[in-house]
């Protein structure tokens, strides 16, 4: 379809070009002044015959000889022929448009204008507008895609930041918890230790007191026995025990 159109238009162009070559520069307005004069002379010779055998061309040549004695009619005929010949020298004014050219040129423009307004121009303009629209749409879509990508990116960044915050919060928390646990453990351990220590100390103290009491009782028994034996006197038992305790206290105090 498209190729057909192109072929058609080009064949038209070729035909036109051929025609133009046919009317090419070689035939440029053909005639020269000389050929014009000859043509006019032929014309005068052909048309100049009168029924009376009289010939207009004679008047033409009369004018080349003598004017004296010519009749008014002869003078007129001479003038007519001279004018005919002189028209060969007159070039038509180049600025006055030729009517046939105006008709063809104006008609050609009118036809072209109608063809362009009806078909050619809207088709081309529509193609251009369609392309412009498509490009605009594509650009808009690209812009939208870019904005979307940016928002996705921003979202991602935000989430990443959140995650980072969360992570550091978790780490902090864990660290805090660990510290707490450690200090608790330490405190507990310390408490246990001090409790064990104090228990041990009180146990030791009790054992010592017990030992002292046991020892004292033992020593008092031994000493009483010994003293009884030494003095052989029998002091009442309470007085003896008091003496012994006093003695021990003195010993312990020294």
């Amino acid at each position, binding site marked *: *379809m*498209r190729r057909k*159109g*192109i072929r058609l*238009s*080009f064949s*038209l*162009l070729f035909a*036109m*070009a051929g*025609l*133009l*070559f*046919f*009317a*090419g*520069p070689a*035939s*440029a*307005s*053909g005639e*020269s*002044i000389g050929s014009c004069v000859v043509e006019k002379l032929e014309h005068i010779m052909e048309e100049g015959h009168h029924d009376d055998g009289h010939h207009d061309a004679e008047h033409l040549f009369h004018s080349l000889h003598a004017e004296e004695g010519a009749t008014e009619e002869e003078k007129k005929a001479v003038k007519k022929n001279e004018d005919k010949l002189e028209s060969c020298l007159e*070039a*038509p004014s*180049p*600025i*006055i*448009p*030729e*009517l*046939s*050219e*105006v*008709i*063809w*040129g*104006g008609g*050609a*423009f009118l*036809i*072209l*204008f109608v*063809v*362009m*307004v009806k*078909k*050619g*121009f*809207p*088709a*081309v*303009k*529509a*193609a*251009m507008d*369609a*392309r412009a629209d*498509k490009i605009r749409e594509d650009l808009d879509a690209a812009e939208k895609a870019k904005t979307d990508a940016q928002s996705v990116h921003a979202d991602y960044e935000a989430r990443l930041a959140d995650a980072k915050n969360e992570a550091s919060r978790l780490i902090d928390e864990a660290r805090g918890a660990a510290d707490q646990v450690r200090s608790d453990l330490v405190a507990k351990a310390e408490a246990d230790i001090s409790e064990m220590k104090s228990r041990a100390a009180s146990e030791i103290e009790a054992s010592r007191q017990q030992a002292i009491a046991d020892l004292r009782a033992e020593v008092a028994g031994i000493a009483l026995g010994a003293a009884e034996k030494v003095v052989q006197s029998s002091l009442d038992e309470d007085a003896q025990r008091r003496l012994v305790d006093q003695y021990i206290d003195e010993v312990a105090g020294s």
Partner: protein
Amino acid sequence: MNVFALEFPPVSHLFEWPDIIFSDSLFAVNKTALIYLAAVLITSAIFLTAGRQRGSLVPVGVQHVAESGVNFVEESVVMETIGPEGKKYLPFLTTMFFFILFSNIFEVVPGIQFPANSRMAVPITLALVVWVIYNFVGVRAQGFGGYLKNSLFPPGVPKALYLIVTPIELVSTFVVRPFSLAIRLWANMVAGHLLLVTFAILTQTLWDNGYIGAVAPFSMLILMTGFEILVSVLQAFIFTILTAVYIGGSMHAEH
């Protein structure tokens, strides 16, 4: 005409072409008429072919030519002179641009070598069409009185100067404008054609008289051919942009 032993044809022989068919009638077809028809065919072919290639995202070939043309007229002519409201004249201005361009460009097409706009027919016809359009637009946009007032008494001019300005504006806007528009195009193409013919004849004569002398005029001929391509495009552009300026001027009261 013999100038320094040069066979220079009469100027009318360079611009007037014999009829090919329908001789001596109103519809006589000569080379000029054929070039106008060729301009129609070429422009239509470009645009119709381009229109058929719709939908291709990257324009190539003929489509590119058509689109560049439309784009050029839209951006460099309409938007620069009238503005967005001038877009409805885009088809007219585009048509005019391409029609004038292709009528001109045959000046340098080998074997044809004749700018159709070196004949007054199309320049004056188009200029008169433009005259009708911009006056119509002016009357429609500003009303008859408003248009006349703004054209003849341009605002911002000291009152006393209207004595001088108004007659000048009257003549320049309503009388001279179409003719200056037409003659600018016509005279440029006439001058270009004469230049090319002159150098071509010089080249041929000097070639016939010992070859060497032809080098200089032949170089000029090549140079001038390039120059005339530029002139062809430029004159089409100038005609189009002036049309747009006139329409824009009629549309907006402040001009």
